[in-house]
């Protein structure tokens, strides 16, 4: 709230005063930076809505065209895109829900409950974070093969249900965000363990939960290698696999088609980010002050 008011006052001041050369320079740099970062996404939109031939013409087409539906129908025709979209959607929602619930529970316990061996356990958990994922790939595959879980979604759900990173992240959030006094006060008021977790701890961890939720959404939504290895039926495919299918045998790629699929696949992440933008910024500002 205070930051908003400061921003408003600043705005009023600049309007009253003459424009400073310094702020012109700052804004020019910022605008260039925004253009540099936003251009690839804009170019994606242009490519997705044009003929492949138009994109490679000179001068290249710089404004979005009207071919999006023609391109996208090729995507629907060439792959199980619709099915893959739904698969990615429910898989992402499920893994995010499980991850947030189980990791926050574990993180809260590690931060606020005392039990023998707690710190050592947490140390072991942290150690698993430093292991590179590539090393674990084949052994993990072996485990799921032995369990008979290959060609099912289980290898995609179970390992993401609670991760070392999630627990670590939310333990830090609980440690700094949940005051001991409030936990004790809740206990005095007669709240049990879960009640305290649900009504006291969780709301205080909200920014961290949102951030972890976004991470997990991105990981599940964009993951390619692991689903490639464990899924065994085009009807099970997630979006990255379906889009990869659009690339031809020897690399022959119809860029407009691939880009229109990519655009649709990116939209949910963009929309999600727009929705939770405020919380993310609050969280960023918060951690900046704390750090």
């Amino acid at each position, binding site marked *: 709230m205070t930051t908003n008011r400061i921003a408003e006052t600043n705005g009023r001041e600049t309007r009253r005063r003459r424009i400073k050369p310094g702020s012109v320079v700052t804004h020019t740099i910022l605008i260039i930076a925004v253009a540099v970062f936003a251009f690839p996404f804009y170019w994606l939109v242009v490519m997705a809505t044009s*003929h*492949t*031939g138009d*994109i*490679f*013409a*000179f001068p*290249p087409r710089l404004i979005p065209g009207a071919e999006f539906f023609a391109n996208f129908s090729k995507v629907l025709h060439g792959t199980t895109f619709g099915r893959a979209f739904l698969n990615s959607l*429910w898989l992402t929602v*499920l893994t995010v*829900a*499980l991850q947030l*619930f189980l990791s926050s529970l574990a993180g809260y316990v590690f931060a606020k409950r005392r039990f023998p061996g707690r710190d050592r356990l947490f140390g072991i958990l942290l150690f698993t974070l430093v292991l590179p994922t590539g090393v674990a*790939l*084949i052994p993990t*595959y*072996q485990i799921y*093969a*032995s369990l008979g*879980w*290959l*060609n*099912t*979604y*289980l290898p995609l*759900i179970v390992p993401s*249900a609670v991760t070392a990173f999630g627990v670590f992240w939310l333990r830090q959030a609980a440690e700094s965000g949940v005051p001991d006094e409030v936990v004790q006060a809740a206990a005095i008021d007669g709240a*049990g363990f*879960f*009640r305290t977790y*649900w009504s006291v701890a969780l709301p205080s961890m909200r920014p961290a939960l949102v951030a972890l939720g976004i991470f997990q959404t991105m990981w599940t939504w964009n993951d390619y*290698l692991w689903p*490639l*290895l464990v899924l*065994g*039926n*085009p*009807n*099970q495919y997630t979006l990255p*696999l379906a889009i*990869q*299918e*659009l*690339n*031809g*045998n*020897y*690399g*022959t*790629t*119809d*860029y407009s088609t691939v880009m229109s699929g990519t655009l649709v696949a990116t939209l949910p992440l963009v929309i999600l980010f727009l929705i939770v933008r405020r919380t993310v910024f609050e969280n960023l500002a918060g951690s900046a002050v704390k750090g």
Partner: protein
Amino acid sequence: MHKRWKLLAISAVAALGAGLLAGCSSGGSGSGSDTISIWYRPGSLPTAAINGVKKEFPDAKISLLKTPDVDTKLAAALRTGQNIPSIAVTNVFTFSNALDKFVDVNKYGFKKDADQYLPWKVKTLQSKSGQQVAIPIDIGPIGFYYRSDVFQAAGLPTDPADVGKLVSTWDSYRQTAEKIKASSGGFICDAADASLYRAQRFQQGYYYYTDAGKVDAGTALSKSTFTDSIQFAEDGLCLNAEPYATDWNAGVAQNKLVGWVGPAYQAGLMKTAAPNESGKWRVATPPGGPASTTGSSLSVLKATPDAALATKIAEWLTNPTNMAAGYAQDSLFPSTPDSFTSPAMAKPDEYFGGQVTTDVLGPIAKQTPYIFIGPSSTNIEAAFSNAITNAVAKKTNPEAAWSKVLKQVQQQYK
């Protein structure tokens, strides 16, 4: 008071349960003990064959899995010994340490059908000990693709037979490249490694190995093809754009790339990148003699429940009829010469101004020399190709680039 918590717990459990159920119920493709499972890359097998295989073998339980990156998936399966398919479209030579997991299809009836396929291609798919570890799918006969209108404007012949004679040697190709550049500013070489280096090596049947299967990257031929290619590009005669890169497509669309030497399947790139130039392109025999890229193949794995049946299915997928359909529908150039006379392949191609491209590419496919593919062939090729691209970009002296990369390659691959 505890209602909300209970609700949460119930919904979490329900979500988990639903996940498990969904996971289990949709795991339909699991290879049961008697299922012949086939893994293939998108576009690697004729669509007609994929659609028809279950009808052709009604008694067999066949499961088809179209998946990107078959090699990665197969590597994981072979390493753990689980979930191995019966048939896979894969680069079998990357698995040279695991060839004992591949079926010698000659033992299961391939031998009597082998003469359906081009002999050189069949032979490239044999292991050092002579086992047939894969069955041919397609190949990439290398042609000289050129814009007839640009040739005409330069006062050069335009008919494919005449152009083939005009560029019959790499020296006359260079002279033509100079003339075209002077008259139109365009290039008839896309990149040194793509247009020159690869074709020159394959024409001599050289893929960095001796016929006894030893790496031999430092031969005189290896050196001259490498340095000549760099020199050609450093003299400003190539566009320096790699096929499948966007600037290659742009070069075609903007009339900067008016010719290139490369495998037949690359022609499809032009058709999507420059649909407006339809009718202007032609294909002629390449400089220096016939050659082909080795193309794809499919292998039967020993984990299959029925090696004889799997071999039979693999052969059917690539028989001349299916391969001809694959040419028409999927731009796969057949390794089965009987397909060359099929209606689809004997048909004039509009994009090539009504030329029957098979008339040029078919004989090239047949006359291609045998190439021994070693386990590191493609890796060494990538190392040399990258060195060529880097040298051209930095205008390095070809000799210096050669001694540098040769040292690296010889250290890495023995």
